[in-house]
């Protein structure tokens, strides 16, 4: 690919303008799915094309970009997307949450609280929270328009009746500013409480499904639940084995074939930062705290 042949951040300016209009509309109607003419990107649909288009439309040459997948900067697809913007936009990139002005993410919200000068861009596979209850787009759009969310509550109720708990552990539906029910993308429900009242702008891009939606700063975002079965953000009941963090989302890593396992922060930057500060976990090498 000859980078000079492409516009800044790959997309042409007319396409960026079209996306920005969709973003502004999304911000004006929090949680509403705005149809947009998603373009074919040089990476496959389902691999973050929505997020990439939103990021491309937001980036300015002064921005500093961070890309994470599963909370980590070094997962293959995060590396690939970061490289794409290094080549096509030439922007600075960072693995540090605090240093980035735009953060594109798949499946996680960083542990460290974001600020008003940051934008968090989510990659979204299926933007429609009602999709698995009603496969037809023509129907689900009507349900949103009429605020007809009974089906969703029935589903959650049936979960409780059958399993004693709501059996959704990620992509847990939320209600935005008391109006639209929204899919927060497949983040673990542990991350749901961070969605509400966040200082940063949250933008959601679904490329294949051609939808953009947004949550403006300091917006009320409530995870759906029942009074007698309140929402519960859950995580593995362990501390991070590397940095000792008690309240970060953990990945479980199988360490041998005899049932051995360890738990580590999924947010690699957060974990590295804590270790640099001298925090240690159960499996930290002796003398690692430096």
């Amino acid at each position, binding site marked *: 690919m000859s980078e000079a042949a*492409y516009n800044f951040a*790959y997309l*042409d300016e007319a396409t960026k303008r079209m996306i920005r209009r969709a973003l502004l509309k999304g911000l004006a109607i929090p949680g509403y799915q705005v*149809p*947009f*003419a*998603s*373009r*074919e*990107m*040089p990476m*496959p*649909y*389902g*691999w973050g094309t929505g997020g990439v288009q939103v990021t491309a439309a937001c980036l300015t040459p002064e921005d500093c970009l961070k890309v994470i*997948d*599963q*909370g980590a900067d*070094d*997962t*293959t*697809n*995060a*590396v*690939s997307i970061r*490289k794409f913007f290094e080549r096509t936009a030439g922007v600075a990139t960072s693995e540090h949450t605090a240093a980035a002005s735009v953060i594109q993410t*798949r*499946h*996680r919200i960083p542990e460290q609280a974001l600020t008003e000068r940051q934008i968090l861009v989510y990659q979204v*596979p299926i933007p429609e929270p009602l999709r698995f209850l009603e496969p*037809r*787009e*023509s129907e689900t759009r009507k349900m949103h328009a009429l605020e007809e969310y009974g089906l969703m509550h029935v589903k959650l109720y049936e979960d409780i009746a059958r*399993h*004693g*708990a709501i*059996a959704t*552990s*990620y992509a847990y539906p939320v209600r935005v500013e008391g109006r639209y029910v929204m899919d927060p993308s*497949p*983040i*673990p429900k*542990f991350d749901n409480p961070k969605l509400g009242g966040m200082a940063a702008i949250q933008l959601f891009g679904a490329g*294949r499904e*051609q939808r953009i939606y947004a949550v403006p700063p300091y917006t009320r975002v409530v995870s759906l639940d029942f009074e007698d079965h309140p929402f519960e953000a*859950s995580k*593995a009941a362990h501390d991070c*084995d*590397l940095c000792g963090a008690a309240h970060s*989302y*953990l*990945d479980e*890593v199988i*360490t041998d074939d005899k049932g051995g396992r*360890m738990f*580590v922060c*999924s947010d*690699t930057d957060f974990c590295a930062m804590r270790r640099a500060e001298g925090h240690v976990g159960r*499996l930290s*090498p002796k003398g690692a705290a430096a």
Partner: protein
Amino acid sequence: MYVATKGGERAIDAAHQWLAEERRGDPSAPELTIVQIREQMALAVNRVMAEGSLYDRDLAALAIKQARGDLIEAIFLIRAYRTTLPRFGASQPVDTDAMALSRRISATFKDAPGGQVLGPTFDYTHRLLDFTLMAEGEAPQAARKPADPAPAPHILQLLDRDGLMEPLPASDETPPDLTREPLEMPADRPLRLQALARGDEGFVLSMAYSTQRGYGRTHAFVGELRIGTCAVDMEIPELGFAIEIGEIELTECETVNQFTGSKTEPPQFTRGYGLVMGQSERKAISMSLVDRALRWAELGEDDMGAPAQDAEFVLYHCDNIQATGFLEHIKLPHYVDFQSELELIRKLRRDAGAETCKEAAE
């Protein structure tokens, strides 16, 4: 001891180098040229052009080479390239009546003005492996005959004259553009045809086949199938008139379907339409069957609940680039979600276990 997986970047680079080596194959075998692919894999090139929605044989051949012959991957390369191209304008509608025909057949009439032209078809070949092709140096020559100067009007027009065909009102309305606006339902016929024209050949074929087997049955006759080149005219603003800017090969299929009439329409023949870039007749015929099946509502037919009658189902699933991307994305890491599922399953099992213990104790 666990070490956080680093080196994704190095792994990606190494994988791409390996891929390039595999693409080339055994270096002692001569390398394929783009011209060879363009000339000798012409039908693969056609499919890539049609589903990639870009009429450029050389680029399609390049994409096939780069994709190691994986046609969906080649289509993806073309689509990703196409979307970066600036748009100078739109051509005038092509006139398929004036097509320079290389093939033209009708299954509904033994003969018609302009005649039947078999053309370069696999039809009536015996599918026996031709081992002489394993040797090199063949350059077969077919017999030649001057083109018939007589015009070859569309055969359905002849039925139209008798009032037996459903009327097709002409329209100068600019059709919607799937590549510039999001697909929204309900989709009108031009939009549906546009989606089908770039839809996956295998998907459209299976949908069409399902209507033949009774899922939304509308028995289709191939009224006419024509393949040939058409001039592409474009009005140049600076000139103020249209000039020919090139020609493209097209395959067009018009089917005739019996229709016994409804509350609003008298008994008559109805149409299905297929138009595909390049020589691609399986696709064009399939497209016309699916087009006809999707027209059930406007013709006042019953919704039989057949997949091919369901525009939302057909249009949202016919694009192989969307489909393959989403399908293959499940290869990406999902361990955060999987972790939350693990915890949920463990919790539910714990709760269920506690219940059982309690019951046993009682």
